[in-house]
């Protein structure tokens, strides 16, 4: 009996190992919006969501390794290590957050979206509505209440790299249709596979000559977080510039980008779309999408 329970436990661990990578695999998104699908009668409602209340911290995950190396035990160890790493990240970011107390990142997200909408009148985007709720359910409620047949969502995340070498602003762009995807489950309209369009753009502003995480964090926090403010303003503006570009990417563009040789800048990599002095725009398969990397001039 004990042997049978052990066999069951082993099988459970194997099932867990098999199940988790499958859950983590990104589903294909419709990241090309065909020209014929661009206009829509009545225009589109627009929602800007920022699902955080202040600058986010970021930590590396070793979950995949934990599952392979230790199965369920590995997961428990990973949880402890992750908590410790998250606490360290919070310690580093708190002084930066203090200086950003009166820095209105929500307004930057709204302004970036407005600038993007102005640059693509074909989207017929309405005045953006702001929400702190960036969950599928919150978005689904907004879609249900919308007076238009489609809604364009711009979901912002702003945080710092785990080693505090950069400030990152990323925007999930999604267009969803009001039509029900699954009866009784309205949120399924927001699932990747049911979106009219889905893409991500990121703007990364790196410190010039980053060193240790502690020193990097101090540089961002110095003078009332002056560098962090400057980098965030740059990153939000660039993210707003990238949105209209992402929405008009064609299949031919994707083929052209993919033919280029892959480049790596720090922890980031992708196919270069264009390069300038001190900056590069990379194209990646989702979930990364378009990534603009620039170095902060101090």
């Amino acid at each position, binding site marked *: 009996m004990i042997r*049978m*329970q052990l*066999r*069951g*436990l082993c*099988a*459970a*661990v194997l*099932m*867990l190992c098999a*199940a*988790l990578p499958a*859950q983590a695999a990104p589903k294909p998104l419709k990241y090309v919006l065909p020209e014929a699908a661009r206009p829509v009668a009545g225009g589109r409602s627009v929602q800007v969501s920022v*699902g*955080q*209340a*202040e600058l986010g*911290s970021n*930590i590396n*995950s070793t*979950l995949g390794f934990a599952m392979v190396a230790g199965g*369920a035990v590995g*997961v428990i160890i*990973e*949880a*402890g290590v*992750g*908590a410790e790493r*998250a*606490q360290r990240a*919070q310690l580093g970011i*708190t002084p930066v*957050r*203090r200086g950003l*107390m009166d820095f209105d990142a*929500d307004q930057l997200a709204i302004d970036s979206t407005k600038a993007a909408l102005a640059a693509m009148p074909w989207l017929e985007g309405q005045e953006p509505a*702001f*929400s*702190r*709720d*960036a*969950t*599928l*359910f*919150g978005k689904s409620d907004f879609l249900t209440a919308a007076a238009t047949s489609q809604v364009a969502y711009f979901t912002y995340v702003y945080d710092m790299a785990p080693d505090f070498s950069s400030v990152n602003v990323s925007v999930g762009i999604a267009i969803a249709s009001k039509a029900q995807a699954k009866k009784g489950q309205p949120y399924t309209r927001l699932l990747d596979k049911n979106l009219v369009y889905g893409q991500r753009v990121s703007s990364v502003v790196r410190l010039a000559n980053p060193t240790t995480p502690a020193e990097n964090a101090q540089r961002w926090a110095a003078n009332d977080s002056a560098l962090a403010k400057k980098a965030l303003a740059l990153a939000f503006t660039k993210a707003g510039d990238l949105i209209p570009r992402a929405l008009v990417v064609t299949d031919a563009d994707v083929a052209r980008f993919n033919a280029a040789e892959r480049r790596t800048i720090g922890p980031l990599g992708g196919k270069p779309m264009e390069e300038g002095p001190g900056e590069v725009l990379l194209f990646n398969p989702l979930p990364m999408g378009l990534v603009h990397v620039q170095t902060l001039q101090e």
Partner: protein
Amino acid sequence: MRSAPFLATAALAASLLTAGSAAAAVGDAKLLGPLYVEPAAAADAANSSTAGGCAVQIELTDPRRDPQIVGAFGVALRAPDDREAWLRSVFDVGLKARGFTPSFAPAGGPPDPAVVTVRIRIQVIWISTQQMNKVGSVVLRGVLAAPGAPAGPEVVYRGDKTAVNMWGSTKEFNDHANAVFALALDDLAEDLRPLCAAPPPATAALAPAPGR
């Protein structure tokens, strides 16, 4: 027949990890409890250092955008419907537990010169997850004044806490919210105590009570 317990054990164990995400993926926003509850550990610590019932008048403002949403863990975490009563309870329950006698003044009203006054602006309330952890932050901006004295400079009171997300239940996140509030309240109470010890100015001490 023998395979039944085998499969049942496997399925149960497999569901342990997936249940969290499944539960989070179905349903609507979760609501925090209607009132702040002092965490047990914080209550013990608070009782060891009281403020002798010192009267504190609090003026509370909450200028956050979309303030009803206070976090997310797959679904949105919402403040109680009566958000004002909830926020007041944080200071009412929390400061009483730390030995004070709080009262509330309307925003923009004149401060009572006979008591310690605190203007609190809520900057951040956010409870969420980071990988396998639950993380929470509360940031309060406070301007404190001794009885009848001019207000001091603004002080920021932070409560930050990270812990392993055990079950992903609403109660667990509710407790986490209370815990980060308690941390911020500890620091606020620390700054209030010396103000309570300050002697009231003569004008305030001689001023007639309202209604006389």
